[in-house]
């Protein structure tokens, strides 16, 4: 056998067994029929998708997409200045800051979230943060910030300081430096970072459950209910299929945008 084939064999087995296998199983389950006893009958039934078209579930999907969108925009806006600052530092200082950025994320996700709940209880700015959408947005920002800062830092680091200084020497304001130099050069990484923080947020479960207090349904909590409580696996699988479709559509759209700019 070709040595190269032998080398990729473990990856191939992993891909088929642990990525494609569960994916096919989810799609098959979404088309299954669940009888009154809870038994699944596999076939080509569209009941779960019909159920999913209920306005109640569409509202859950809409709410989830809105939360993920708001979170992605906030995270990008918060991460950009930090990434820019780090990109202008020497390697040692930037390394220190990056370590400080990453170390809190070596701790278990659940523990970090419980700690974050303690902070939210302080009622910063005289506002109630726990069990509210803004509390969830703060928690999402807290959790996804490094995923936005690191790729942005890597992109901004490649822009020479001399380019910015030249523009400033020629009289460009800070705003103009941003709109005419930084923005065009970092638009593509920004799209990638947007996807990096947006897509995982669509399926986020712990933040709506813990920080949101499970008070309103989001896709993650909805899935938990369908799979663990209601045991309506076809409906949960159909929701996952829709989520995968939505993520795929966004990825294709972003891929096309990047290809047009000559990246992909």
């Amino acid at each position, binding site marked *: 056998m070709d040595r190269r084939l032998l080398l990729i064999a*473990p*990856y191939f087995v*992993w891909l088929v067994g642990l990525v494609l296998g569960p994916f096919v199983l989810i799609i098959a389950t979404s088309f299954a029929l669940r009888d009154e006893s809870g038994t699944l009958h596999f076939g080509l039934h569209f009941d779960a998708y019909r159920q999913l078209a209920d306005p109640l579930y569409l509202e859950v999907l809409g709410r989830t997409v809105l939360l993920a969108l708001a979170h992605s925009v906030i995270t990008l806006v*918060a991460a950009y*200045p*930090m990434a*820019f*600052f*780090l990109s*202008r530092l020497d390697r040692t200082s930037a390394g220190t*800051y990056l370590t*400080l*950025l990453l170390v*809190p994320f070596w*701790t278990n996700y659940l*523990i*970090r*979230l*419980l*700690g*974050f709940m*303690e*902070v939210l209880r302080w009622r910063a700015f005289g506002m109630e943060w726990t069990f509210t959408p803004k509390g969830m947005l703060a928690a999402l920002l*807290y959790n996804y*910030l*490094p995923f936005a800062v690191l790729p942005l830092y890597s992109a901004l680091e490649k822009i020479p300081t001399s380019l910015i200084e030249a523009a400033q020497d020629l009289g460009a304001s800070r705003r103009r430096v941003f709109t005419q130099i930084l923005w065009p050069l970092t638009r593509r990484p920004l799209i990638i970072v947007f996807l990096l923080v947006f897509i995982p947020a669509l399926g986020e479960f712990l933040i709506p459950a813990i920080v949101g207090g499970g008070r309103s349904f989001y896709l993650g909590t909805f899935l938990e209910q369908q799979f663990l409580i209601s045991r309506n696996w076809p409906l949960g699988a159909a929701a996952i299929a829709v989520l995968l479709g939505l993520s795929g559509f966004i990825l294709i759209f972003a891929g096309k945008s990047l290809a047009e700019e000559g990246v992909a």
Partner: protein
Amino acid sequence: MKLLRVYTLALLAFLWMPLSVLLFKGLSLVAFEKLLNSSDVLSSFRNSLVLAAATAILTTVL
């Protein structure tokens, strides 16, 4: 740059705050003593270490 430094430090404080709150909540060594004397905790700690090491090795090999 000064403003950006303050902004970055504020964001880092935001990231460190939840962990600091948990670490310093009721600051004493009693919890650590309980932790080290609990065979359940030590056993789960060992299991997590084994699992994490196995995952790291397998992922790197793959």
